[in-house]
């Protein structure tokens, strides 16, 4: 085993990871920084983000308004100091991206265009057609190639954080291309591995989103925060779960039930299609339950109708939606409505960090969807996540750069011990386990189905308990998992087993936190506790890993100017 060493290691090469890498590289050119990613950075899931990036860009808008929209959207579970910092920084980051060449859509006068988005009270979502994430990711990646102090480890799979006492010393990883295992030493680690949508059967998320970073942090002793809050995007294609961007409603699209009725008038008469995602998803599910959904091969759906927008608007503002609908469901939105249903889209929860993206471990930072800096609370507003990657990615990079100058070198001893232990776990315990007889796919499918059925949009104690019991079984079954591919080169069978291992921890965290939160807030709706309960639950939940079990604890919410009020739209 060889030892590779850097000052800062960033796990994940998506929007947040690359923004952090660039910020650190710019802050101090003497720092040696590495980005470790299980896919080539331009494959990261940021690439699938469509609608846009929220930021105050116009005279009619202001920071307080963006803050308030975000806080109200979060059902008052966002930390308000974090929100206030975020809204002030977001426009600067959007401009920074523009200077780096991001092809934002433009108005006639040459300024950046903005569009309407759900839960935003004015137009403030900057966009690049409906491929905003794609353009941002490629801009960041192409820009990152200019820094000589940045090294990329493409297709390296991180398996664990190396932790000793109260600090990190780096990570252990598999070089997927040749199958070798070893450590990457570093003073500072930034986790930017994205969310965990793959824990559900039906998701807009890419297959790589398996919660690796969350699980690694949890095992390293860091708490996961607010894990019960899982966002269902109201409009995904049935079957594949491919996202039909919220921008299609921002540009004026309608949601229609089987009677051709814009049913949202019964739920959100003021906001209609521009309501927040949690309420819209519940409204659609209610339509299904009450028999007003359409029926298809993959169950119920409603229609997303864009026909009245006309071909020109669709082609200039929503070309990707048209391309995807034509390709995957054979429907041209210019002439026909698109079948859609809610699908898991985003984890509000994640690695618990402070406003500076620092975790409870010295030298460990987390940013992007993997983290919970508490910007999004119980429900994220559309277009805040891309801005979050930029704003807090930059924070993480700068903070990590400062910290790397202060922290001592990682301990070779600690690293050696960790690598030996981890290599034994992964290679001897999993890859070479000859007696394993549980199929990876079977456990994964069962896990995802359980989560879909029991920890979905509407939750209740009985179902959550069923899920908790089943997750225990999945953990047991995983202990007996069979990796069929015994080769070392590009063994995606092995990485799938490791990803499943992570997913089970994520599922467990979601279920545990959801069981304990006996109220309804944002995306977490309990049939048995349909009211928000500020007396007992105006607080973040934390889950800790203790002796192979999870312990749930709480943390107060930071309130600055906006006292919790009833969330009515």
């Amino acid at each position: 085993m060889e030892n590779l060493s850097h000052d800062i290691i960033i796990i994940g090469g998506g929007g947040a990871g690359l923004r952090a890498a660039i910020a650190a590289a710019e802050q101090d050119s003497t720092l040696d920084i590495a980005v470790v990613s299980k896919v080539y950075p331009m494959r990261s899931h940021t690439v699938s983000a469509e609608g846009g990036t929220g930021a105050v860009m116009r005279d009619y808008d202001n920071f307080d308004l963006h803050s308030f929209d975000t806080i109200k959207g979060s059902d008052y579970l966002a930390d308000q100091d974090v929100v206030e910092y975020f809204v002030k920084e977001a426009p600067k980051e959007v401009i920074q991206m523009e200077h780096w060449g991001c092809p934002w859509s433009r108005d006639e006068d040459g300024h950046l265009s903005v569009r309407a988005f759900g839960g935003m009270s004015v137009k403030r979502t900057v966009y690049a057609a409906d491929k905003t994430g794609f353009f941002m990711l490629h801009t960041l990646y192409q820009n990152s190639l200019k820094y000589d102090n940045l090294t990329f480890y493409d297709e390296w799979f991180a398996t664990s954080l190396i932790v000793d006492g109260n600090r990190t010393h780096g990570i252990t990883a598999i070089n997927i291309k040749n199958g070798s295992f070893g450590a990457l030493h570093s003073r500072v680690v930034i986790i930017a591995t994205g969310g965990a949508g793959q824990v559900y059967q039906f998701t807009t998320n890419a297959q790589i989103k398996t919660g690796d970073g969350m699980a690694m942090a949890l095992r390293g002793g860091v708490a996961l925060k607010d894990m019960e809050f899982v966002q269902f995007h109201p409009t995904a294609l049935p079957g594949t779960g491919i996202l039909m961007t919220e921008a299609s409603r921002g540009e004026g699209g309608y949601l229609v039930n089987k009677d051709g009725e814009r049913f949202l008038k019964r739920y959100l008469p003021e906001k209609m299609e521009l309501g927040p995602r949690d309420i819209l998803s519940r409204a659609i599910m209610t339509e299904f339950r009450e028999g007003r959904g359409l029926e298809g091969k993959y169950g119920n759906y409603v229609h997303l109708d864009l026909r009245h927008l006309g071909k020109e608007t669709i082609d200039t503002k929503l070309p990707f939606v048209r391309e995807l609908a034509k390709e995957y469901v054979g429907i041209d939105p210019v002439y026909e409505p698109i079948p859609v249903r809610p699908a898991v889209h985003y984890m509000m929860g994640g690695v618990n960090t402070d406003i500076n993206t620092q975790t409870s471990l010295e030298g460990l930072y987390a940013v992007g969807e993997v983290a919970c800096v508490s910007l999004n609370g119980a429900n994220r507003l559309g277009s805040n996540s891309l801005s979050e990657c930029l704003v807090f990615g930059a924070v993480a990079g700068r903070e990590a750069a400062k910290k790397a100058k202060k922290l001592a070198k990682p301990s070779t001893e600690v690293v050696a011990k960790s690598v030996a232990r981890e290599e034994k776990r992964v290679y001897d315990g999993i890859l070479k386990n000859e007696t394993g007889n549980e199929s990876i796919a079977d456990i994964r499918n069962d896990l995802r189905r359980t989560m879909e059925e029991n920890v979905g949009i509407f939750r209740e104690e009985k179902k959550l308990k069923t899920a908790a019991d089943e997750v225990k079984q999945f953990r047991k079954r995983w202990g007996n998992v069979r990796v069929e591919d015994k080769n070392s080169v590009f063994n995606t069978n092995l990485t799938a087993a490791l990803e499943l291992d992570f997913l089970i921890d994520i599922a467990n965290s979601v279920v545990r936190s959801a069981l304990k939160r006996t109220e309804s807030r944002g995306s977490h709706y309990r049939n048995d506790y349909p009211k928000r309960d500020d007396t007992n639950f105006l607080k973040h939940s934390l889950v800790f890993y203790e002796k192979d079990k999870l312990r749930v604890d709480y943390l107060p919410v930071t309130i600055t100017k906006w006292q919790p009020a009833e969330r009515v739209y």
Partner: protein
Amino acid sequence: MDKEVRSYEYKPSKTWWLGNRRYALYMVRELSGFAVAVYGFIFLAQLFTLSQGPLAYDALLGVLLSPAGILLSTILLVFAIFHSLTWFDLTAKVQPPSMKGKPVPRKIVVTGTIIIWLFISYFVAVFIFRVG
């Protein structure tokens, strides 16, 4: 951790261009470039014999007007026309002229340039045969 693994390299086959119409057309176009070059060479030869006096020129003309010479010329002509057409097609793609800010459709540009080309060829022919 950077150990080399044995990766596999496919060697291109000699007949790779036969499997795809575009590749085949491309090979023909490359070949047609050769035809254009031969035309140029014949023209140079004509100029040279002309400088050597009418006898030399007539001798060459005799060769060119023999059945074999005519056959060769015909083949060369076909290739040269093919080459020219692909050129017009290409130009239309690379530098499409615009009208009122909108690019002119490729078909119109290609047809237009071909018409201009025929027009010029006509005048050249008229010029040559009048002079001749």
